[in-house]
């Protein structure tokens, strides 16, 4: 019973996501910002927090400190702290940073999380794939929007 409802829920989510999803090569940028949601489905901040932490997904803590995750050891020092980042960047710009931060910071070390091609020698299992799914990007954006003074 429990099982069925979980399965149904994930089926519905997957269905909803693909219907309106913007493909990686079709994302429209405006000065580093992406105005349109990639999925049309509101981001889930709670899941975004998990994606942010997950070493195989965002792994954002590898490079950024984040006081909201003080319980986690080892915050990276390569990028700026993301404390109160939503006071500095609006939703569209945060989405742009996640999709491809090179549109804002030329030559940055920060990976593009929603780009599928143009890579040199990607490992076979990542060929043609994005680091995060469209909905995961929306979820992380929703999480980042909670990081306010």
């Amino acid at each position, binding site marked *: 019973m429990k099982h069925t409802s979980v399965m149904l829920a994930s089926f519905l989510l997957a269905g909803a996501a693909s219907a309106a999803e913007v493909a990686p090569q079709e994302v429209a940028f405006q000065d580093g910002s992406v105005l349109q949601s990639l999925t049309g489905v509101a981001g889930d901040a709670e899941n975004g927090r998990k994606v942010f932490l997950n070493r195989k997904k965002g792994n954002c803590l590898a*490079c950024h400190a984040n006081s909201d995750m003080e319980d986690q050891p080892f915050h990276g020092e390569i990028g700026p702290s993301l404390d109160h980042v939503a006071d500095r960047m609006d939703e569209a710009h945060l989405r742009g940073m996640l999709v491809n931060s090179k549109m804002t910071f030329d030559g940055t070390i920060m*990976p593009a999380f929603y780009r599928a091609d143009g890579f*040199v*020698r*990607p*490992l076979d299992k990542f060929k043609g794939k994005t*680091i995060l799914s469209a909905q995961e990007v929306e979820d992380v954006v929703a999480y980042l929007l909670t990081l306010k003074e």
Partner: protein
Amino acid sequence: MKITMTLLAASALALSAGASLADGHERIEIDGVELILAAPAPDYVEHLDKVMSGWLFRSAETQALELDDFDNPAFVFIDKGIDLFNEVDGSEGKSCASCHEDVAEFAGLRASMPRVVDGKVQTMEDIVNDMRVNYMGAEPWKWSGGEMTSVVGLISLQSRGMPVDVKIDGDAAPFWERGKELYYTRVGQLDMACANCHEDNFGKMIRADRLSQGQINGFPTYRLKNAKLNSIHGRFKGCMKNIRAKPFKEGSEEFRALELYLASRGAGLSVESPSVRN
């Protein structure tokens, strides 16, 4: 003796936190041999003032393991290397020692490797396998296998304290250029070059690891993570996989060129093999 070592280590630690000797060098001492672990960068290393050994970026506990050969876990493998050096193998009934009575005759070799011979970058692994195949009639060893890293470690140890000084001009020049190009080329799904981490961000934490300059003067390196000696090409592979790039093969033209280029970026540092890292 012990006191001197500790003092030296302590001053090196303090130095790694920012200060610098007047001549731009930082030193430690192991078994009575002085090692230079930071030196002014050669002018062809355009974006660095100073070249620094990976030792300077490790925790005090990890650093300490390298300061005394009795504590250095790599020496289990060096001992194995001594046994292998003396062990007869192959159709000719010879060991390395049949032709090289004392391994100490290799003092200085590691400091000048890799080098270009007959239009190809020759590494220490090539020399060892050339001896095995052509003089001993034995099977070649695997590039990063335990036998190879042990014997490469033993031979490298003979140069401990000597300044890295590889030839990069003349017939080495095109290989060096290729290595440099690879060092600055972004690869993998994470789209990063070696330089993004080891030149632009050394000294900073990347999650639980403090980024070093990615120098190779300490190889083969004992890593606490996998409790064995690690080859240079093995480490290159690891870093490429971490950025989700398809690694070149150990012994490939690309890794040979990269090895030559990286060795040259450490010119002036002492050979530190076998080093200890996490």
